[in-house]
């Protein structure tokens, strides 16, 4: 059953090659690839739930000599989120891109992005992580530049340079690790790493590189323009999945590989930066004039919440409280992934229909595109953190952990951030439910509107109401 790990990487890669060679039946190929990959992700989740953490040694060589792929509860959950979001966005994309040349350029890069995400989440080797990070970065940049406008290409170029800088720092950290410990396998390193110049410098370098890629304040400057000018499905995936992948790596490094070395000061630093992200991002989202910019700033803010967990996890002793907090972190990440993807897809529908995404001019959207507006509302509920969304549970755990460990600052930041989020979401909805009656019948296009709707519903309803098994899953391998 561990074979499913390698299928998760191989299937989207095969799909990418197929869509490159056979552009005519591309949409069919993409849907087939998407369904196959999602099935594999589901199988993996099931296998991990039944059998515990899985690992796969590529080529049959033992970990260290060869590359080991690993799946535990956390990565299986994230892989499932990646699969569902990419599947929904793929369905949306088949309707979003009208010209054949656009689609021809889009699909191979799209499936290569999916390959990169899966490969990254499954990798158990540091250098392999570097290669997957580069694949992820280059495919994301190429997709973002497909927007074609001057703004899109300029933002994509800045994204590329920032990404390269981050990767270079990550690689510098890897070289120090190899110099000091002679192995690149993460499981082996987790056991043999000891506090010292090599480990501290490597952790600092790798974290700095990853923080650039996850756009944590104050290294977030590249994100809003890039996510706002990319095509809608690309923005959805960039905000929901790509930055999340870099965050996952920070989590892995801090809680797993370098776990013994993390000091309270370092964790607090991450927390402070996260707080800055929450406040800065929410404030700018409130003042944004365009929907896509609002969503991009919201991503910066929501990622900040995830980093607020670090000082809390550091302060809590291992035990039930820590497990609950860790679970809250993951469910908040999952909820944001689904909600942000749904939001961007819905914005894409509005942008294609009205030709713009100005918030002030959203008058009457609720009447013209009721399903889309409902999708925005659902996503908004999850972004604010209202019950019964998964984000509510996540923030609840955040607040509970803050109270338990006595760190009141994070409580205050979360409260302010949530209030600001409520403000900017309700501002959008207020404009969407304009007062002027709209004479024409509402138009619904299934391919375009259902994916956004389903994503929003998952974030708000499914994750919130059906989240109990999540905590047991996260126990596995953590």
């Amino acid at each position, binding site marked *: 059953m561990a074979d499913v790990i390698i299928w998760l990487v191989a299937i989207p890669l095969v799909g990418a090659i197929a869509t490159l060679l056979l552009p005519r039946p591309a949409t069919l190929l993409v849907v087939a690839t998407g369904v196959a990959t999602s099935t594999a992700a589901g199988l993996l989740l099931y296998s991990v739930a039944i059998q515990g953490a899985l690992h796969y040694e590529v080529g049959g060589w033992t970990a260290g000599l060869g590359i080991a792929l690993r799946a535990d509860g956390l990565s299986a959950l994230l892989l499932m989120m990646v699969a569902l979001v990419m599947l929904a966005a793929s369905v949306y994309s088949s309707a979003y891109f009208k010209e054949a040349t656009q689609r021809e350029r889009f699909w191979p890069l799209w499936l290569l992005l999916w390959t990169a995400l899966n490969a990254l989440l499954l990798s158990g080797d540091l250098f392999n992580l570097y290669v997957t990070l580069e694949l992820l970065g280059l495919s994301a940049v190429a997709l973002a*530049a497909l927007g074609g406008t001057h703004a899109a290409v300029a933002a994509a170029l800045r994204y*590329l340079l920032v990404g390269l800088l981050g990767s270079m720092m990550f690689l510098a950290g890897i070289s120090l690790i190899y110099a000091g410990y002679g192995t*690149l396998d993460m499981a082996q390193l987790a056991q043999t790493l000891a506090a010292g110049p090599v480990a501290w410098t490597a952790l600092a370098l790798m974290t700095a590189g990853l923080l650039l890629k996850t756009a944590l304040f104050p290294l977030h400057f590249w994100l809003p323009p890039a996510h706002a000018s990319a095509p809608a499905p690309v923005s959805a995936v960039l905000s929901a999945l790509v930055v999340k992948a870099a965050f996952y790596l920070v989590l892995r490094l801090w809680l797993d590989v370098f776990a013994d070395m993390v000091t309270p000061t370092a964790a607090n630093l991450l927390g402070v930066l996260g707080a800055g992200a929450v406040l800065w991002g929410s404030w700018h989202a409130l003042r944004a004039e365009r929907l896509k910019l609002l969503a991009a700033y919201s991503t910066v803010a929501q990622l900040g919440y995830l980093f607020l967990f670090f000082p809390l996890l550091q302060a809590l002793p291992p035990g039930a409280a820590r497990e609950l907090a860790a679970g809250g972190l993951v469910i908040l990440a999952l909820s944001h992934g689904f909600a942000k993807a749904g939001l961007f897809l819905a914005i894409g529908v509005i942008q294609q229909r009205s030709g713009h995404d100005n918030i002030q001019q959203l008058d009457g959207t609720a009447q013209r595109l009721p399903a889309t507006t409902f999708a925005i509302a659902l996503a908004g509920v999850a972004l604010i953190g209202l019950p019964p969304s998964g984000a509510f549970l996540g923030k609840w755990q955040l607040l509970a952990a803050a109270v338990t460990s006595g760190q009141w600052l994070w409580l205050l930041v979360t409260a302010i951030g949530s209030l600001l989020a409520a403000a900017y979401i309700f501002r959008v909805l207020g404009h969407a439910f304009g007062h002027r009656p709209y004479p024409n019948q509402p138009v619904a296009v299934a391919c375009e509107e259902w994916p956004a709707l389903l994503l929003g519903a998952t974030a708000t309803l499914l994750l919130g109401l059906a989240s109990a098994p999540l905590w047991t899953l996260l126990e596995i391998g953590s």
Partner: protein
Amino acid sequence: MLTAHVMYGLSGCLLVALGLRTTLLHASLLRRVLAINVMGAGVFMMLIAVAYRGLGVPPDPVPHALVLTGIVVAVSATALALALARRLHAEHDNG
């Protein structure tokens, strides 16, 4: 620890710092691309110094493989960056 380790290792660190400084300070795209490549060369030098065991002694092949992969990745990224810049300049020239 061989003398070569110290010399090449430190030079690698120096190249990384040099490249980083220009990446952060210089405004021109081309110069930034060159600077990131210089940073890469610095990291490669550190890796190859780690692999070195002495003249005529077989070195550790793993860092060599890593550097080879890194060189190809670097040229791919450089090519993409230059292509994006070319697209921007073309639009700028055409008005």
